[in-house]
């Protein structure tokens, strides 16, 4: 047991908590800088506490590696991590995401033309979105082989239903008055679709797209647990766990976390550009 680490990290987290308390209850609490400062300091504090507990209590690295060890491993194996990232994220998740989005979008436009179909498909789609679809992974791995194609297929199925349901909902979001206005302009179906209904549906569509970003990454990683070539984030996680090389596992998780939040952030950024008119995008109060 190493008391210097323990006490040092405890003192750090206490100091950070004190500073955060002062900032959060102080005068400048609504400024952007303190909104940024407080959560970042909290995260840093947690990392310090983690490091201190691992070092101080001498936790073996096969149970929980220290953040410094994880970071060292990350820097040391960027090459492997990059190969895994390309295999899982770019080839598996991203391609599946694009295909699934296009498919869901096409089906949504079709369904939207028939009221009967919409009423039938919406409950089924909602039902499917709540199911553990990830279980379809072993079947698709059997059909499409071990490489990225099967992962992309899993991702297609996983992202399909949330986007479908949200798009169909969104296409209904216009009001009768607005649609009547388009009718008085003698607008065709496609004109109404592109000029009124699709723009109005965008907040819903982006909601589905944002949910799907996380699902895509989960689908691609978990599908690799059922069989994969000797690269990929899911493959690396399951084999390195077997070897008890947890620093490498945490390095992969770090990559997954960065990729996941960057992907989400990108979609959210596009959303802000596209739906700038929507009340939820207004800044300030």
């Amino acid at each position, binding site marked *: 047991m190493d008391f210097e680490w323990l006490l040092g990290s405890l003192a750090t987290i206490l100091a950070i908590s004190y500073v955060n308390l002062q900032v*959060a209850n102080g005068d400048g609490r609504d400024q952007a800088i303190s909104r940024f400062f407080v959560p970042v300091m909290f995260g840093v504090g947690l990392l310090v506490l983690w490091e201190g507990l691992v070092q101080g209590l001498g936790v073996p690295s096969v149970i929980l590696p220290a953040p410094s060890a994880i970071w060292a491993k990350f820097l040391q194996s960027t090459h492997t991590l990059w190969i895994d990232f390309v295999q899982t994220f770019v080839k598996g998740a991203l391609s599946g995401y694009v295909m699934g989005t296009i498919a869901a979008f096409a089906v949504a436009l079709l369904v939207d033309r028939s009221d009967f179909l919409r*009423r039938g498909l919406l409950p089924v789609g909602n039902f499917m979105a709540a199911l553990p679809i990830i279980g379809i992974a072993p079947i698709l791995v059997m059909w499409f082989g071990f490489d990225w194609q099967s992962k992309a297929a899993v991702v297609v199925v996983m992202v399909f239903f949330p986007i479908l349901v949200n798009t169909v909902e969104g296409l209904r979001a216009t009001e009768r008055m607005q649609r009547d206005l388009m009718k008085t302009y003698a607008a065709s179906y496609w004109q109404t679709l592109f000029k009124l209904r699709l723009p109005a549906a965008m907040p819903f569509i982006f909601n589905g797209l944002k949910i799907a970003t996380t699902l895509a990454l989960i689908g691609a990683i978990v599908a690799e*647990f059922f069989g994969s070539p000797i690269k990929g984030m899911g493959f690396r996680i399951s084999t390195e766990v077997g070897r008890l090389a947890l620093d490498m596992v945490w390095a992969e998780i770090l990559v997954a976390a960065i990729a996941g939040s960057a992907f989400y952030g990108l979609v959210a950024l596009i959303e802000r550009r596209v739906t700038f008119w929507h009340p939820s995008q207004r800044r300030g109060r």
Partner: protein
Amino acid sequence: MSDAAIAPAAGGFGAGARAVRDVVLPVFVVVAVIVALWYVACVPMNIKEALTQAERGGAVINPEGARERRDMSAIGLVFKNPSYAADTLNQERPRLPAPHQVGRELWKTTGAMVLTGRGFSKRSLIYHGWVTLSATVLGFVIGTVAGVGLAIGIVHSRVMNMAVMPWAIASQTIPILAIAPMIIVVLNSIGVTGLLPKALISAYLSFFPVAVGMVKGLRSPDNMQLDLLSTYSASKSETFWKLRLPSSMPYFFTSMKIAMAASLVGAIVGELPTGAVRGLGARLLAGSYYGQTVQIWAALFAAAILAAVLVGMIGMLQRVTLKKMGMVH
């Protein structure tokens, strides 16, 4: 489905007939179309294996030899040998089992085993489903309680709101499920085995949706209502029990549904790294090891039924509770 079941009781015959026309019939037709497409898909998916089997049995196939047929398109083969289409629906290890095969396997491993008094044997899906269900529910309860606790903290403490809330939101964009194998193996290595590791994964997955949803819910009373309570000089805890908590209920149930679905996925994935011993996830993995496609599909459907029942139960609870509170009419 449950909409249709409740509507007649509420609105008499006319409403019942409308519910059938507007809800049940379209859903029924869509499901029927899906099942029909499934049957049609079985034929090209399984035709090569069916032709190989038939050829071994002495039949003459066009073209001859499995190697000849290997690179041909499956649909072309179906048109050249239409008489073997029926064989594709009853294979032992099909690439795509037909719906009735899955149904038969489901019955064989649940109802039939109960009738012979082996309902809890290790080959029964009830046993595996129970293993998964107990981890799911335990994890869901832990995650929900912790999530509600965090939400109460966030709503009442400014510093927690500023420090923790961004992380809670950001964590939803991270594929947390990736750490499942590690949690299982690490907890096993320090002697924690069985239900708890899986439940912890489930708890972790259901924690954040509940926390984020409940923060929204507890903040949903508007300023007017909060002002009213402060003119009554209500204390913080009175405001919480009489205003914030009741108005958070719709959000609570919605996030519980998400949490339950996530919790089940967590339990299933948590069963993968232990080497396919028990639970629905283990059945999926064992099926994929040994090419038992019918078993995979049966486990998949069992998981789907489990999810539907669990989420449906929360939905029912939601409807009853909100009705009693006068929040839906």
